[in-house]
């Protein structure tokens, strides 16, 4: 179980913790702990992550059944979020069935190009649309870099 995978999973999953909190599946204290961990690159054990982000793990396990990948590997996590996550949304899997289109749009993980860096956010271009996204999880991106975006957060720089 690589620590790199744990950190990467938290980066990709954290953006939806706001919704998890609003739905009452975690408390404010748990949310604050996740936020602190993602900001400071602190490890949160797999057991806790699997409990809080149970639907994401269920989907990663489904994907790994198809691909034969180890679910506790960083590349598996990245492959899930970049290649499979949106397919689950499109198929209205699990609670996506009850989510409004505008929310499902924000839940998608998109590849975005940074067109401006401001003091409190990046401005990214997704398709033809501009969106401000938080720098909190991915601090050192520059104009022209490609990043993955989940909800209102830039998650990691893409090659």
């Amino acid at each position, binding site marked *: 179980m690589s620590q790199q995978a744990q950190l990467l999973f938290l980066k990709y999953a954290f*953006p939806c913790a*706001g*919704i998890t*909190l*609003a*739905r009452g599946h975690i408390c404010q204290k748990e949310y604050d702990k996740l*936020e602190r961990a993602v900001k400071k690159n602190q490890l949160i054990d797999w057991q806790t992550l699997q409990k809080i982000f149970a639907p994401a793990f269920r989907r990663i396990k489904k994907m790994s059944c198809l691909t034969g990948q180890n679910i506790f590997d960083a590349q598996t996590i990245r492959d899930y979020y970049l290649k499979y996550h949106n397919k689950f949304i499109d198929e209205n899997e699990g*609670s996506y069935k*009850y*989510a*409004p*289109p*505008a*929310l499902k*749009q*924000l839940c998608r993980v998109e590849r975005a190009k940074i067109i401006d860096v*401001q003091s*409190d*956010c990046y*401005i990214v271009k997704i398709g033809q649309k*501009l*969106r*401000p*996204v*938080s720098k*909190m999880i991915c601090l050192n991106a520059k104009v022209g870099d490609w990043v993955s975006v989940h*909800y*209102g957060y830039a998650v990691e720089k893409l090659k």
Partner: protein
Amino acid sequence: MCLAIPGQITKIKTCQATVKYPQNDIKQAKIITGSYKTGDYVIVQAGLVIEKVPKKQVEMWNKFIQ
């Protein structure tokens, strides 16, 4: 911190929006990009307006959160 529920813009002054939430909770949020007007429902994250929510979807959104 992300406010996971839609709020309604009640006022826009230059790029600063006043956003109203249930229980008359009022927040200020900056509009960085996109066109918004008074009456729009929006999602605010870390003090920034990040997305518009069509009025027809607001009820569905609130139900989803409950």
